[in-house]
């Protein structure tokens, strides 16, 4: 019962059937358990803590698949077309949160940069990553309390609807000991700051290289340029770090998310369209 995928009742019933010696029974059960683990692609039975967070995006993908061909559920609004295409070819979709202990945040007047590291060592060797997206949540920019406002409430950003931000995503590389890592631009986007939404960036080339062992994973750098800088709070609207996120309770569902799309050569894709029975 090393992993615990076989219920204890089943183990006991088999052992007590008297078909084999106790040692033989134990060996057969353990072999069967290994087959179960192998079937699921696990090394041991998962034992998640109560605090484990399931990203809403993964739930959306699951519901999108389970309704596929039945209710015609559309893709989540935040899902890019490239992600949908990737999901249609992948049989495994994995999500990762970054290692917060390894993040490096820097904020200058008109620029916020954040270095992320995602531990991808749990991706098995036989899984070929065909696509990956880095998802970053950004909140609409609220204009500062107006000086003549008696309530002190901040107004929505409609008054600053011209505000544009540029988000650049870089792959970091270079020698481990180097002070200044080199960066290669992977994706970039100009965004309107008056809308709250997830932004999806294509980081496939870097992740495919890392997981195939062709290059070393040094992480990403996200750069947020806010050219019309003038308000101190502005750099806070892109949720790249817990320290920039005011509501700690919602951080788990607003923090950056890396999603990989891969195939281990076994079976159909997750978003494979099935014929109705």
């Amino acid at each position, binding site marked *: 019962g090393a992993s615990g995928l076989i219920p204890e009742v089943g183990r006991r019933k088999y052992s007590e059937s008297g078909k084999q010696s106790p040692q033989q029974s134990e060996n057969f059960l353990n072999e069967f358990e290994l087959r179960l683990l192998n079937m699921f692609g696990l090394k041991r039975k998962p034992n998640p803590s109560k605090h484990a967070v399931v990203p809403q995006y*993964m739930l959306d993908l699951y519901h999108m698949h389970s309704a596929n061909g039945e209710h015609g559920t559309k893709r989540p609004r935040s899902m890019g077309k490239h992600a949908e295409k990737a999901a249609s070819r992948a049989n495994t979709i994995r999500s990762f949160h970054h290692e917060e202990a390894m993040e490096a945040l820097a904020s200058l007047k008109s620029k916020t940069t954040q270095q992320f590291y995602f531990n991808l060592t749990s991706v098995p060797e036989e899984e070929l990553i065909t696509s990956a997206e880095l998802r970053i949540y950004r909140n609409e920019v609220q204009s500062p309390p107006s000086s003549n406002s008696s309530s002190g409430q901040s107004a929505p950003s409609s008054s600053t609807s011209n505000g544009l931000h540029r988000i650049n995503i870089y792959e970091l590389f270079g020698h481990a000991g180097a002070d200044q890592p080199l960066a290669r631009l992977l994706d970039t986007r100009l965004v309107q700051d008056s809308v709250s939404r997830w932004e999806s960036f294509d980081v496939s080339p870097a992740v495919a290289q890392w997981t195939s062992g062709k290059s070393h994973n040094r992480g990403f750098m996200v750069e947020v340029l806010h050219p019309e800088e003038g308000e101190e709070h502005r750099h806070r609207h892109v949720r790249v770090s817990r320290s920039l996120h005011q509501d700690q309770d919602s951080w788990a569902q607003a923090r950056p998310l890396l999603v990989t799309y891969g195939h281990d050569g076994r079976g159909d894709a997750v978003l494979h369209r099935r014929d109705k029975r």
Partner: protein
Amino acid sequence: QATLRKQRRKQNKASCRRHDLYVDFSDVGWNEWIVAPPGYHAFYCQGECPFPLADHLNSTNHAIVQTLVNSVNSNIPRACCVPTDLSPISLLYLDEYEKVILKNYQDMVVEGCGCR
């Protein structure tokens, strides 16, 4: 007529076909790490593969011959009632590192049964 109907029903009941089986992950303690679905309709195959094999039993040539031989020599077993068509399901689960994974697993649901 009533006797004939009863016999036919009994024969149909016994012949190889798909039966309902809902696998509830909480029954095997897998609900701790499988987020969705809570369970699924897996189905199973059970029943006889009697001589002469009917068309709908999806038999192979070998199963037809084996059944024929069984009809003259009962030492040779009948063909077996097994799944002939299976489909995949997707599971959303947390792995041993608490990473959330959505994965498609093939051959999890019985779509059709036959004598093989």
